């Protein structure tokens, strides 16, 4: 919905980076490097699909990092219990959905602001996990767990295919399903949505549940890449995901944004760090440049808000 200026400017920015890299550091484009880059950012991409929904409804979920850690460990524990890998993965997704349901219920029906609810669950889930595992990693995973029991290449292809399918499905659904309409309407103006017969509380609950399930999904795909599962996985994931959505033009006040934009946001933030390394710049600059990009994106939104009909609406309200 809305114009495509954000997507266009993100693509332009990435082309510019790519051109510089081609000229200065063609090594960036080797197959191995690209593959590592894509796989490392798969969790961010999958979780950002849920975060787009949450932010579109005008909410925020900063507990996804902690949810990611719990789902990772849960997948390992279920595998240890002897569940076949796909089933263990599904169970981990269910755990994620359950955590999302807790967030969603507290936001929708207890009426607590989502930033507070998810701040609380972020801390509680992370420290609860630390207490339960005593900081120990999940090790000695059954042989069928790593790479889903497939070859590494096949597993990686499955991961990428699933992620892209999810992204395409989400993008299509937001545009073509009645449920997608409800998400946009709820985020634009919950009261207006209610008047139109939509139940905003149910919509908000649903997007938190979906985000939890997607976080579980991302955790499983990430866990199978390694021999052991750390109990502190997903630290700082929430910030990466929210930053990607915002950079991708998803309005932090809700109601405006696309999956395509968020994907481009993930991509841009993913290449910045490695690109700097290849260009020989200190990695310390990475975070500063990321911050600058986020600031630029938010400023663009602010300018648009001030010049557009929102300003008229605001003036009318005052």
């Amino acid at each position, binding site marked *: 919905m809305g114009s495509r200026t954000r997507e266009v400017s993100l693509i332009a920015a990435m082309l510019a980076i790519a051109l510089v890299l081609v000229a200065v550091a063609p090594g960036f484009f080797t197959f191995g490097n690209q593959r590592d880059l894509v796989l490392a950012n798969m969790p961010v991409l999958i979780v950002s699909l849920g975060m787009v929904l949450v932010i579109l409804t005008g909410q925020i979920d900063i507990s996804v990092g902690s949810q990611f850690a719990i789902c990772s460990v849960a997948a390992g524990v279920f595998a240890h219990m002897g569940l076949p890998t796909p089933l263990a993965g599904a169970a981990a997704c269910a755990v994620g959905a359950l955590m999302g349901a807790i967030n969603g219920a507290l936001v929708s029906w207890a009426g607590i602001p989502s930033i507070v609810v998810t701040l609380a669950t972020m801390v509680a889930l992370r420290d609860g996990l630390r207490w339960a595992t005593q900081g120990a990693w999940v090790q000695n995973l059954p042989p069928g767990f790593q790479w889903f029991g497939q070859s590494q290449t096949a597993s990686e292809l499955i991961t990428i295919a699933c992620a892209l399918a999810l992204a395409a499905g989400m993008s299509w659904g937001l545009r073509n399903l*009645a449920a997608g*309409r409800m998400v*946009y309407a709820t985020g*634009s*103006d919950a*009261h207006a949505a209610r008047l*139109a017969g939509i139940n905003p509380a149910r919509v908000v609950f649903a997007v938190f549940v979906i985000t939890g399930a997607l976080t579980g999904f991302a955790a499983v795909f990430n866990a199978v890449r390694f021999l052991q599962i750390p109990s502190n996985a997903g630290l700082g994931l929430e910030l990466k995901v929210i930053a990607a959505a915002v950079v991708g033009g998803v309005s932090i006040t809700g109601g405006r944004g696309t999956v395509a934009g968020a994907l481009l946001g993930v991509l841009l933030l993913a290449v910045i760090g490695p690109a700097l390394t290849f260009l020989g710049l200190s990695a310390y600059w990475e975070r500063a440049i990321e911050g600058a990009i986020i600031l630029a994106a938010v400023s663009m939104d602010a300018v648009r808000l001030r010049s557009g009909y929102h300003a008229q*609406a605001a003036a009318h309200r005052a």
Partner: protein
Amino acid sequence: MALLEVNAVSKHFEGVQALKSVSLELRSREVHALVGENGAGKSTLIKVITGAEKADSGTLTVAHNSPAIAHSLGIAAVYQQPALFPDLTVAENIAFALESAGVWRRIDWGARDQLARELLDRAGADLSPRRLVHTLSMPEQQIVEIAKAIGARAKILILDEPTASLTEREVERLFRVIRALRESGAGIIYISHRLEEIAAIADRVTVLRDGQTVATRDLGGIEPAELIRLMVGRDVHAIFPKRDVPIADILLEARALSCRAAGIRDINISVRAGEILGLAGLVGAGRTQLAETLVGLTPSDGGEILLRGRGVRISSPADAIDLKIGYLPEDRLRHGVVLEMPVAANTTLASLDAVSRRGLIDAGKERRVARGYVDRLRIKTHSIYADAGSLSGGNQQKVALARWLAIQPEVLILDEPTQGVDVGSKSEIHQMMVDLAARGLAIVMISSELPEILGMSDRMAVMRNGTIAGILPRAEATQERILALALGHE
């Protein structure tokens, strides 16, 4: 001697002339009532006097003979909704208005409490200065506002409907305070819809109508009926396209309907197929609240709603939509249309089920529906995929109307359907209402514009204080009778 002279003040907002050469003179030791219908310009005039709005032309003259006034202009206003800091104490709120604004000054808490206690005492209230404002009732908060005004040594005090939320005893106490202020030489501008109160407290009254001063009279020689005549006394210039269509069975009926949360009680109304029922009343009489109860936004807690004679339970707007009851809300920019959404999506938002199958929106069907309404309502937009926010106000309202027509309603509740809409769109909306009635819809129209109510309705229900004050058939309705019911003078 005049404390304040308002001289030929004019003010316009975006093409609307809110004040046209308004004059008013406030004398010392006088309570000056200001009356007029909704939208007559009372609030704008107050804003100009307090400096919240700048007049386009005209002058304000404030008497300059006392040091207190020379110090500041000495104008204080107390609004219906007190403007206090809820999480600070009474004393802090008063001090905030009165103490000097130096950032580094040291606060003398004892003196602060002492001052607050004195001022509250003069305002006739027995309140602890240490109480937090949010623990006070609305009348108590108003007293704090008045204490602030006394503390500021205001020579000119403006009270905007101060008694709206007060009980009789509290009104009496407020009047004592007002009289004491008057004796001390202040001039008071008193805005109220309650004519009996005006008779009790005011010395003179100025009537505003359509942004103009109609008359200033001594209260001694004026009857309430005369006052009402002065308030409406205008001809109905506008031509309304209303025509008589066959009126059939009762579609929607409310019996002893109440909702404590919305502040409405014991509502008995009905509307028939083909009929337009006008819902009149002053702002705050409960018209929008009644509409919101009928559509389940604030579900009723007493009485019943009948649709075609059968009792129905409406506990959310979704229920109302299922029952084919549409509600066009009052605040179009906020709730009528979703500004960030395209015209097409706005049109089908309340009827997603009708344009989708198993949750999947049929884009072709949506396009046909949206195109159909864009043509039928002559909505001016370059594309049905343009954001609703890019349309003009009148066209946005038509999109909002299209959304409700798309649910194929049997009952349509329109809340101020032509407020803030240009003249052309307004008459198109009126025409549409008549056509819909002719097709057998039952329409409830809330309007603050008396000519619109009189010109468009078959019957008129007048609300006052959260209930129906009276119902007038078209043949018997006049502006005077409606206003008399709305004011409680019949």
